């Protein structure tokens, strides 16, 4: 397939792997903050192609993982109302709230429908004029503009039974929070698709203020390997800047039409990131002029915040302090079938991706001597 296959050329990947190995550097840690990167890295087995001195850390790049547990509880509460249809991306359906999940509620009869696009949710609203259709808006700057488009459409076409519950968030604030945290990050593999909308300009503050390397990376193996090479070179030369590896889709300015649409509908607000806490101006709220499409504004339901499982260390994992292998629950109590924390729920969450796609290293130091379903050795992994 065009623009995909060429970027999976194994000879070029091998070449890049050799170039990366030639770089003489002490241990460097590169953090990716995009679930798409988490998935791609594990799916293609990229860690097995990198030298020991380059460590890839998975950050809070999964919007499902970082959505407040209250968001799910709220959606569940709405779904219990007889005149409500919940429409959601598939990613949210198994996310555990404090007591239940959308999947469980669906099996009990709640009208919860999975859609691929928010436009489908709008169609459902048009086809069901006597119902209130609530669309669950998760995602970063890649997805938020599509929620904005749909609200503009709903407004223009007078679809007054369509509502959005926003959990949309923005990347730069959480990236800055991580830099003020204790985990050692030498460079960011910046999210390629967020950047198609925002432009690479949003990361400028990172090298300027923190002397951290940044490369905006695509999602194919060549993109990721080339980005690792570019980051390593920046770090070795101490020449910190924002570079664009994903130049076929990303520019400095980004998509200004999409940005205009986004900020016509949304404005920043303080937001709670699961596992991290409250970050100022990191979320997106529907503006006053479109408030009648805001589900939060429509429904007046009290939700009790129950809190997270105390043994769950998703927060530490999301911030890069710990890895899934460090978690006592990983693979034993917490599995993709029975997720406890957010990192295991989404297939892009660090724990889920790790569980599903573990990189296999057939050396004498084989960390996978035992069957993957036996995780006694999991706690020895770093």
């Amino acid at each position, binding site marked *: *397939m*065009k*623009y*995909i296959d*060429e*970027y999976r050329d194994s000879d*070029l990947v091998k*070449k*890049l792997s050799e*170039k990366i190995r030639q770089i003489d550097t002490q241990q460097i840690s590169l953090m990716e903050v*995009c*679930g*798409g990167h988490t998935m791609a890295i594990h799916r293609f087995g990229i860690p097995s192609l990198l030298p020991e001195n380059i460590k890839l850390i998975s950050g809070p*790049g*999964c*919007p499902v993982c970082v959505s407040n547990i209250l968001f799910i509880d709220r959606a569940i509460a709405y779904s219990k109302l007889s005149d409500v249809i919940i429409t959601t*991306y598939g990613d949210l359906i198994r996310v555990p709230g404090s007591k239940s999940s959308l999947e469980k509620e669906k099996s009990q009869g709640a009208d919860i429908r999975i859609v*691929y*696009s*928010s*436009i*489908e949710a709008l169609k459902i609203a048009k086809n069901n004029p006597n119902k209130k259709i609530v669309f669950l808006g998760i*995602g*970063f700057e*890649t*997805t938020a*503009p*599509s929620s904005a*488009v749909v609200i*503009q*459409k709903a407004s223009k076409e007078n679809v007054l039974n369509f509502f959005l519950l926003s959990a949309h968030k923005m990347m730069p604030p959480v990236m800055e929070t991580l830099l003020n945290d204790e985990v050692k990050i030498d460079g960011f593999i910046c*999210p390629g*698709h*967020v950047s*198609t*909308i925002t432009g690479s300009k949003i990361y400028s503050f990172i090298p300027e203020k923190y002397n951290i390397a940044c490369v905006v990376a695509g*999602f194919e193996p*060549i993109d990721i390997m*080339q980005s690792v090479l570019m980051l390593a070179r920046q770090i070795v030369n101490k020449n910190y800047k924002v570079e664009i*590896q994903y*130049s*076929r*889709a*990303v520019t400095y300015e980004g*998509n200004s*039409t*999409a940005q205009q*649409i986004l900020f016509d509908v949304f404005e920043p607000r303080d937001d709670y990131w699961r596992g991290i806490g409250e970050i100022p101006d990191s979320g997106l709220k529907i503006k006053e002029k479109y408030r009648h499409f805001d589900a939060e504004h429509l429904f007046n339901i009290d939700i009790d915040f129950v809190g997270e499982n105390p043994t769950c260390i998703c927060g530490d994992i999301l911030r890069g302090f710990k890895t899934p292998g460090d978690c006592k629950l990983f693979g034993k109590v917490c599995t993709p079938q029975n997720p406890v924390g957010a990192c295991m729920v989404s297939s*892009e969450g660090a724990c889920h991706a790790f569980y599903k796609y573990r990189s296999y290293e057939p050396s004498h130091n084989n960390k996978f001597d035992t069957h993957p379903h036996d995780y006694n050795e999991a706690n020895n992994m770093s």
Partner: protein
Amino acid sequence: MCLSIPGKIISINGDMADVSIGGNIVKVGIQMLDNIQKGDYVLVHAGFALQKINEKEALETLQLLKEMDE
């Protein structure tokens, strides 16, 4: 984030387009893009086109990589 995939614009109908991805036709919203034409390649995410693929840059990326060492 996030799952986005390049596809080719087959036809345009107002603010929606038919996009071919591996032979499958997907209806995609093109509200975020101006000056889109039939034959253009766009990045599709959650039923919307986010950005047009820059063919020149795409080729250059690969070309530079192939020339590494040469």
